[in-house]
């Protein structure tokens, strides 16, 4: 993992003290709320439906056990005993006191963490593949690149006041586990025909009220020019992105309105100019960063066989582990989606346990996924059974990864001041309706995503089944959509028709799964069947 150098630490420590003074001045009445609000937001502190909410950055979703323990400590000492892992691979605390916020940031800084750029119209936390450095299918570890982008984008003076927030994802495999093409910039590291490392750039993706899939604007940017190219993309956006209308200010609108070709032309022109300035980070800097991401000291003699005689363990292994690049190891996914639970929530005790298990079983590493789960990336297969038993004892072993109950759900109207409807109760009811694991496995991979408002934090546009909560004359109503995907087969879901009430949407989900079970062919997933047979059979089941 990357370790702060003296400059990193000094910057974060200085920001803590700056915010401590700003908070003191606000509490003393020297700053008004209008003056203070942008300052607290720059430090991840929102005022939400019930209290202040603090969003802590977890760069590219990677953290060690010491950092995870700190997240548990904050949940226990400053919040109400739990935290919420988000679709941006971050964590949020829902019950923060303003007077505690500087102390929390100070505590975070002791483990090289902060909440900088988790809000505001700046480049947000860089996201990446949660299996980075462990996946058998990646061409290189994308985290050094994500870290380089993090350093470049942190406090970047030119990009601190963009037209709107800006999200970048970096992956290094054809399988997209990070919803890369639904980011403002999606970067896929690739080898070109000559075997040289570089990147494909996709720009102008996003969800929200105007969902768009980012088009490819460059099929190969040489690795040593990647920052230059990203900077050129940002410069064109910063220059021409709309600042007159918040709802048209994201880069996806600019790319759409200019057209991909014209936007690309302008980026290329800016890129050519950028290259004359010599501002790209030196190759030696990337090499320095890369040294922080070595492979762990794997036991190369580790047994690759697994004893699957325990049927419950076998189901968990089948569903929640992923092939590792190193023989004898597996990637273990910890589902934060227990039946009837709150997607992404973990108690302080659970957070501490996951930290302890990372230390004991996974070379001290954890990852947060955009699907609101946790990953232990490097677990020896011979130790998986012991790990699973400890997870199971703590309620952390639902064997439902990528099944219907592994839902993404935003906090919704239970916590969020922007929401129009509650998301979590719908997720809970669907989870209970489909609680039988055999039934879930029969349905196979089925990504269900729920948002409580049009801002789409719950990624409903990218759900095989998507649910959007709306306010219809003061009453919660839920629109159903089908056919979305945030993966390499990226697509945007389409609305089925009129919405449903809270119980009706659960019935509706069941009806569309029944259509799938009736009409599927071979090994088709739900989304495959939808793509083959279209919307009509689903609409007939829902509305006739």
């Amino acid at each position, binding site marked *: 993992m990357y370790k702060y150098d003296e400059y990193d630490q000094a910057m974060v420590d200085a920001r803590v003290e700056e915010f401590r003074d700003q908070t003191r001045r606000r509490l003393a009445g020297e700053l008004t709320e209008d003056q203070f609000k942008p300052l607290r937001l720059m430090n991840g502190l929102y*005022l939400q*439906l019930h*209290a202040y909410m603090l969003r802590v950055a977890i760069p590219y979703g990677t953290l060690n056990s010491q950092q995870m323990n700190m997240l548990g400590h904050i949940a226990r000492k400053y919040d109400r005993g739990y935290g919420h892992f988000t679709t941006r691979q971050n964590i949020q605390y829902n019950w923060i006191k303003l007077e505690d916020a500087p102390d929390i940031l100070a505590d975070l800084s002791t483990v090289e963490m902060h909440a900088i750029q988790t809000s505001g119209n700046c480049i947000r936390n860089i996201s990446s593949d949660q299996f980075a450095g462990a996946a058998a299918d990646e061409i290189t570890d994308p985290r050094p690149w994500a870290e380089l982008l993090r350093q470049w984008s942190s406090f970047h003076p030119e990009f601190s006041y963009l037209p709107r927030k800006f999200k970048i994802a970096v992956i290094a495999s054809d399988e997209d586990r990070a919803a890369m093409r639904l980011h403002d910039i999606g970067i896929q590291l690739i080898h070109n025909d000559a075997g040289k490392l570089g990147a494909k750039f996709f720009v102008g993706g996003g969800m929200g009220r105007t969902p768009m899939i980012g088009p490819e604007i460059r099929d190969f940017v040489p690795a040593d020019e990647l920052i230059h190219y990203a900077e050129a993309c940002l410069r064109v956006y910063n220059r021409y992105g709309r600042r007159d209308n918040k709802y048209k200010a994201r880069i996806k609108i600019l790319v759409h309105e200019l057209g991909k070709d014209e936007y690309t032309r302008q980026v290329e022109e800016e890129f050519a100019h950028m290259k004359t300035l010599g501002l790209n980070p030196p190759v030696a800097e990337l090499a320095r960063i890369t040294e922080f991401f070595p492979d762990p000291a794997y036991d190369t003699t580790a047994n690759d066989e697994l004893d699957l005689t325990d049927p419950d363990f076998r189901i968990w292994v089948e569903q929640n582990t992923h092939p590792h690049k190193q023989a004898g190891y597996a990637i273990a996914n910890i589902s934060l989606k227990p039946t009837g639970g*709150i997607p992404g929530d973990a108690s302080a005790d659970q957070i501490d346990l996951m930290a302890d298990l990372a230390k004991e079983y996974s070379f001290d590493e954890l990852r947060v996924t955009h699907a609101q789960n946790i990953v232990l990336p490097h677990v020896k297969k011979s130790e998986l059974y012991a790990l699973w038993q400890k997870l199971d004892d703590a309620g952390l072993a639902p064997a439902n990864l990528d099944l219907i109950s592994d839902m993404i759900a935003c906090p919704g109207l239970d916590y969020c001041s922007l929401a129009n409807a509650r998301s979590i109760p719908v997720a809970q009811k669907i989870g209970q309706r489909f609680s039988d694991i055999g039934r879930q496995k029969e349905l196979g991979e089925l990504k269900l995503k729920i948002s409580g408002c049009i801002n789409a934090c719950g990624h409903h546009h990218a759900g095989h089944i998507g649910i959007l909560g709306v306010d219809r004359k003061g009453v919660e109503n839920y629109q159903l959509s089908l056919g979305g995907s945030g993966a390499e087969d990226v697509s945007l879901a389409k609305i089925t028709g009129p919405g449903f009430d809270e119980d009706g949407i659960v019935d509706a989900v069941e009806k569309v799964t029944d259509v799938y079970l009736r009409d599927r062919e071979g090994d088709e997933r739900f989304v495959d069947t939808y793509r083959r047979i279209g919307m009509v059979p689903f609409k007939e089941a829902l509305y006739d």
Partner: protein
Amino acid sequence: MNLLTGNDLKTGDVIWWAGDKGWSLHVADAADAGDEGEAILAREEAARRVNASYIVAAEATGKGPMPLHIKERVRASGPTVRTDLAINTDIPIVNA
């Protein structure tokens, strides 16, 4: 009726204006501000007794004043999915 609400500056807690009694965590204590809401809020914000305040439309019920909109009822209640953390669990969230 018009209720006044906002957040406690230090703690962030949702609070309701209770007339002479100051600010309360419980919507049942809330007083009708009538047409004086803007003036009261300006005064209370300036004194830092409330933060991010605004006026909420409500109706009188057998359980006391009840916000008309679901969002305000959730604010008054606390998270409906964590009733252990809710402060006013007897508030009907839906179809009040």
